[in-house]
C-alpha cells in the first residue's frame, strides 16, 4: 500500500537506491522507493560481476556497515575469486561473477520483505521544495508524494541517450524510458549539470562461440564470502568459468577503416559527454594505443538461465553492421551470433562539488544524491553511496550527527571525499591507487574498521556485533600469547627452522618476533604452540605482526593527515578577502567550500602555496593556531 506521506523517498531502484531504501527502512523510517520499472530493480545493465580491485573491499565495507550488497552477492554468484592473491594483504580483493537473473531477484525479495518499505512504479519529474528544503516529489502524472527527505539515485536515466553509429535515441538501458525533466528542474534549483558518457559491449550467444580457441579462466578452488556473516552457499566445482581471447590484426583493421562511423569519432557530432578513462571503448583503445598489437577481451557468462555471454573490453558505438564484422574477426567468434549490440549512453549528472561530505546537497536541505547521478560508475561505487545517503538521511531525521568516513577509515570515505573535493570530469571509478592508506583499508579488516559504526547507527544487530567483539578479543589473546611464548635454541627447533629455509636461532626468541621473519607463517608457528583460532583471527594476527613496521608508518602518515583535517576552516570565510590567492585556487575554494585545511589541500588547482596563504589569513583573522 502506498501512503502519501513518507519519511524518506528514494528515487531509483538501482544498486544505490536499494541500499538507500534498505538503510532508511531498517532504521525504522517510513520509506518509499520509486522506480521506473519494478522489473529492473537491482538490475546489472553492464558487466556481470560484483567486486574487483578496490571495489571488492567496498563491498565488504558495505557489509560491515550493515548494507546488503555483500550478502546478496554471496547468494547470487556463479564464480568467485580473490584478486591479487600473490600480492600483499592490502591490495587483495574479491570479485564474483554474479548471475544477472538471481542477483536482482534476491535483492527484490529482500526489499519486498522489508518492513517500513513501499515500492512504487513511476517516473519522478520534479521536486517539491519550500524554503530550500525538500518536501516531496512530483511524478510524471503530476501526482505529489510528500516526504521529509529525498534521496536521488537516478543512475543513467536523467535525459539518457543511447547512441549507435549515427543514431541517437532518448532511452535508458533496456530501452527503458528516461526521466525527461528532472535534470532541467534540478538545474532551475541551481544545480550545475554535467553530461557524462559510458558504454557497454555486445552480448554473444554462448552456443555460437568456439571455446576451444579461448583460454579458460576458473574461479578459486577455495571458498570465499563477501559478507562477514554468511557461510559459502556455492560449491567450488559448480563454478562457471570465464574465457580469455585477444583482438586480431583484422579487428584493428576493421575498426581503423570504419572509425568515422563510430558515434564517438564523427558518427554523431553533438556528443558532449565525457567518457570514462578506465573503461574506454575498443575504438578509443586502438586510437590511443596505436602501437599495441592486441587487446585482451574476456567472455563472461551473464547467467545460468540464459545464453548471453558478455564480451568484456569490446564496448563500442559502431553501427550494427560494423559490429558484426568486428565480432567475427575475434578468435572463436567467427560464427558468433550477437544477441545484443554494443552501445554508448550519454546522461546527465550533477556536479558533485555541490554536495556535502554527507551526500546531502548544499543547495537543498534534506535532499541527498547517490550513485551515477554524482558522476561515479560501477555498481559498488553506487551501492556504498546509497548506503551512506540512506544512513545520513535517517540520521538527519533523527537529529543526529552525520556519518562521514575519513580517508583512513574506508574506501567509501576516499570515494566520497574525492567526489566532493575534486569533482569529476569523466565517470569516477574507485582504484586502489586513489587510497593513500590502503595498507589500513584492507578487505580482511573491514569489519574491524567499520562494524562498530554500523552497530552504533543501528544497522548491525546485537548478535553480529557480539561476533565482532569476540573476534577482537581473540585477536588480542593470540597476539599476547605469541608475545609471551618463547622458543629456545634447542636442537630440534633449529633443525625445524633449517628445514623450512629459515635461519637457526642463537638466543631465545618470542613467537611474536619469530613470525616477523618473512619466511615464517602462522602454520610454522603452530609447530611450537597449540593455537585454536578461526582462520580470520589467525590471518589478522599474522598480518598485524608481519607488516607491523609498515602499518606503523601508515599510521604516522594518517596522523599527519588528521592533523590537517582537524584544522577546520570557518564556514563564514570570505575567500575574496584573502590577498594573493591564485585566482584558480580562489574560485575552487569558493566552489568546494572545504571544511578543513586537509580537504583544501586535496582540491586540484589549489597549490601548497595557496594553502600557506590561507593559513596565514586564518591565523590573522581568526586567531588560528598554526602548529
Amino acid at each position, binding site marked *: 500500500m502506498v501512503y502519501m506521506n513518507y519519511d524518506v523517498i528514494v528515487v531509483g531502484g538501482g544498486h544505490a537506491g536499494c541500499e538507500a531504501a534498505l538503510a532508511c527502512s531498517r532504521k525504522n523510517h517510513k520509506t518509499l522507493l520509486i522506480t521506473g520499472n519494478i522489473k529492473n530493480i537491482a538490475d546489472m545493465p553492464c*558487466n556481470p560481476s560484483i567486486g*574487483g*580491485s*578496490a571495489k571488492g573491499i567496498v563491498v565488504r565495507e558495505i557489509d560491515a556497515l550493515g548494507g546488503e550488497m555483500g550478502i546478496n552477492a554471496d547468494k547470487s554468484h556463479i564464480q568467485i575469486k580473490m*584478486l*591479487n592473491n*600473490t*600480492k*600483499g*594483504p*592490502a*591490495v587483495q580483493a574479491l570479485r564474483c561473477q554474479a548471475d544477472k537473473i538471481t542477483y536482482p531477484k534476491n535483492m527484490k525479495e529482500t526489499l519486498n520483505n522489508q518492513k517500513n518499505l513501499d515500492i512504487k512504479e513511476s517516473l519522478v519529474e520534479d521536486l517539491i521544495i519550500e524554503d530550500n528544503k525538500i518536501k516531496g516529489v512530483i511524478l510524471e502524472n503530476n501526482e505529489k508524494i510528500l516526504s521529509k527527505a529525498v534521496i536521488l539515485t537516478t543512475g543513467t536515466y536523467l535525459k539518457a541517450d543511447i547512441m549507435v553509429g549515427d543514431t541517437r535515441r532518448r532511452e535508458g538501458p533496456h530501452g527503458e524510458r528516461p526521466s525527461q525533466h528532472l535534470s532541467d528542474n534540478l538545474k532551475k534549483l541551481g544545480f550545475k549539470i554535467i553530461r557524462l558518457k559510458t558504454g557497454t559491449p555486445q552480448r554473444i550467444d554462448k552456443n555460437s562461440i568456439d571455446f576451444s580457441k579461448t583460454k579458460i*579462466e576458473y574461479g578459486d578452488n577455495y571458498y570465499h564470502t563477501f559478507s562477514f556473516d554468511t557461510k559459502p552457499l556455492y560449491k567450488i566445482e559448480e563454478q562457471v568459468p570465464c574465457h*580469455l581471447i585477444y583482438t586480431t590484426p583484422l579487428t584493428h583493421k576493421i575498426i581503423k577503416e570504419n572509425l568515422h562511423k563510430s558515434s564517438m569519432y564523427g558518427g554523431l557530432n553533438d556528443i558532449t559527454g565525457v567518457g570514462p*578513462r*578506465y*573503461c*574506454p571503448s*575498443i575504438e*578509443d*583503445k586502438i586510437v*590511443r*594505443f596505436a602501437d*599495441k598489437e*592486441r*587487446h*585482451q577481451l*574476456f567472455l563472461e557468462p551473464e547467467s545460468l538461465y540464459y545464453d548471453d555471454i558478455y564480451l*568484456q*573490453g569490446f*564496448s563500442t558505438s559502431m553501427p550494427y553492421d560494423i559490429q558484426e564484422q568486428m565480432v567475427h574477426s575475434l578468435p572463436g567468434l567467427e560464427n558468433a551470433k550477437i544477441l545484443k549490440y554494443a552501445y554508448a549512453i550519454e546522461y546527465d549528472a550533477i556536479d558533485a562539488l555541490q554536495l556535502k561530505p554527507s551526500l546531502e546537497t548544499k543547495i537543498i536541505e534534506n535532499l541527498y544524491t547517490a550513485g551515477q547521478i554524482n558522476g561515479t560508475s560501477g555498481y559498488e561505487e553506487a551501492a556504498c553511496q546509497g548506503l551512506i545517503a540512506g544512513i545520513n538521511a535517517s540520521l538527519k531525521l533523527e537529529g543526529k550527527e552525520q556519518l562521514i568516513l575519513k580517508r583512513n577509515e574506508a574506501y567509501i570515505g576516499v570515494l566520497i571525499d574525492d567526489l566532493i573535493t*575534486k569533482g569529476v570530469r569523466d565517470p569516477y571509478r574507485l*582504484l*586502489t*591507487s*586513489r587510497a*593513500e592508506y*590502503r*595498507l589500513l583499508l584492507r578487505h580482511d579488516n573491514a569489519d574491524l574498521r567499520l562494524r562498530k559504526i554500523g552497530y552504533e547507527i543501528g544497522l548491525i544487530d546485537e548478535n553480529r556485533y557480539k561476533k565482532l567483539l569476540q573476534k577482537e578479543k581473540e585477536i588480542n589473546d593470540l597476539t599476547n600469547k605469541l608475545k609471551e611464548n618463547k622458543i629456545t635454541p634447542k636442537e630440534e627447533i633449529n633443525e625445524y627452522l633449517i628445514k623450512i629455509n629459515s635461519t637457526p636461532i642463537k638466543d631465545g626468541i618470542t613467537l611474536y618476533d619469530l613470525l616477523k621473519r*618473512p*619466511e615464517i607463517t602462522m602454520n610454522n608457528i603452530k609447530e611450537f604452540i597449540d593455537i585454536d583460532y578461526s582462520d580470520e583471527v589467525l590471518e589478522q594476527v599474522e598480518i598485524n605482526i608481519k*607488516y607491523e613496521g*609498515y602499518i606503523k*608508518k*601508515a599510521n604516522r602518515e594518517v596522523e599527519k593527515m588528521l592533523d590537517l583535517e582537524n584544522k577546520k576552516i570557518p564556514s563564514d570565510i570570505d575567500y575574496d578577502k584573502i*590577498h*594573493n590567492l*591564485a585566482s584558480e585556487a580562489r574560485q575552487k575554494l569558493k566552489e568546494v567550500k572545504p571544511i578543513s585545511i586537509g580537504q583544501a589541500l*586535496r582540491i*586540484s588547482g589549489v*597549490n*601548497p*602555496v595557496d594553502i*600557506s*596563504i590561507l593559513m596565514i589569513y586564518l591565523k590573522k583573522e581568526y586567531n588560528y593556531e598554526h602548529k
Partner: protein
Amino acid sequence: MNDTIAAISTSLGVGAISIIRVSGDESIKIVNNIFKGKNLNFVDSHTINYGYIVDNDKIIDEVLVSIMRAPKTFTKENVVEINCHGGIATTKKILELLLLNGCRLAEPGEFTKRAFLNGRIDLLEAEAISDLINAKSDKSRNLAINQLSGNTSNMIKNLRQKILEILANIEVNIDYPEYEDIEVITNEMILPKTKEIETDIKNILEKSENGQIIKEGIKTIIIGKPNVGKSSLLNNLLEEDKAIVTDIAGTTRDIVEGQILIDGILLNLIDTAGIRKTNDIVEQIGVKKSYDLINQANLIIYMLNNNEEITDEDIEILEQIKNKNHIIIINKIDLENKLSIEKITNKEHLIYMNITNNIGIDKLKEEIKKMFNLDLIEQDDYNFLTNSRSISLLKECLKLIQNVYSGIENNLPIDMIEIDIKKIWNLLGEIIGETYQDELINQLFSQFCLGK
C-alpha cells in the same frame, strides 16, 4: 589587496646610483604623487621614465623610474624602481617620501616572499634568491643563479618522473591484475631501478655537499705542536690572498680567524682558540677538546716539524683524523730530518713544506682543490642543492631506499615495498613544493591501455 612596500635595494653608501624598489597595487600611483615628468599612471608597462622626485615643489633628485605592471614582474605585483643619484641623504629622503605617501617599509626578504606567495617562483627559487643576496664568492653567486633558473627543480622533477613511472606500473598491476599484456613488475625488476635512483640521489648529495662548501666555505683548522709553523702558514695564506681578516662572528657559527679564496672557493680558517696567539692548541685545551674541533671541521691541516721526532700524541691525533678530509704538512724541510716518516701510516695527502721560502704552498692549494672536487664544480655543473632543508630531505630518501632494499631482500609483496617508494616520491615533491596524488592517477591512464 596587498599593501605597497618600499625599500632601498642597493647597498647604502658610495655607489654611483641607488635603486629604491616599490611593490604593490598602489606602487605606481604613489610614485606618481612624488614624480615630476610624465603621468606614470598612463605610461606603458616596462618603460623607463625620466623626471624628478619632488617634495611638494622642491626637487629632491633627478631620476629614472622603471614602471612594471603586474603580473609580469618579479613579485607579480605592480613594481616601480627608482634609480637615483646615490648618496645616503638623497636616497633616504626619497624613501621617506614614499613612506609618507602610503608605502610601508618592506621587511627583509619581503619582495622575495611576495614573489613566492604570488606563485612567481617556487620554494627552491625563493631559497636561491636569498642565497644570491648573501653570496660571498663568484661561484656561490653562479650557484644561486643556477638554482634560480630552475635547473635544480628540473633535476628533482626528472627524478620524480622516473619514480612515477615505477609507481604507475605497480599500481596498474594492482588495479588490473588480470591484464596479461601489461608487464608485471617484480621485486627483481625494482632493484636496478631503485639502484639507479639511489645513484642519482647520491650524486646530487655529493655535489650538494660541495655546493654547501661553495656557499659556506670550507671550515678549516690548522693544528700541530708548538713552533711547528702554524701561524706562519696562516699568515702566508692570508697575506698572499689579501683575505679579509675579521674578528667578528661570521656567517658560520664559528669564530673565523680569516677567510681566503682559493680559485673562487672560500676557505674559512677557524680560530682554534687563537692559534696565532697561543701557538699550541693541543697543549692549551687538551687532546679531547681538539677532537671536538676536529669533528666539526671540513678540513684538518695537521702540521709536523721535519726537525723533530714524531710523538705518540701526534700519532694518536693522526689516527683520529684518518677518516676525515685531512692534509699532513711536514714543515721545515730545510732543516735536518729527525722525523721517522715510516711512523705515518697514511701518506696519501702529505706535503713537504718550507713556509719561510714559500715551498709547498701551491701544492697545498692544489691538494685542497683536488680533495673537494673543486675542479668538478668548475665545469659549471650546478645540479645540486645548497640548502640544508633539501639536503636533509634527500638524506631521508636514501634511508627509505635502504628500506626498499631490505623489503626486496625479504621478498615482501611489491605493494609493501611501494609504500617506501611512494614516500620517496613525496619527499622529493616536498623539496620543490609540489606533492599531490592526482599526478599518479593521470600517469596511470596516459601510460597504459586499460579497460574493463
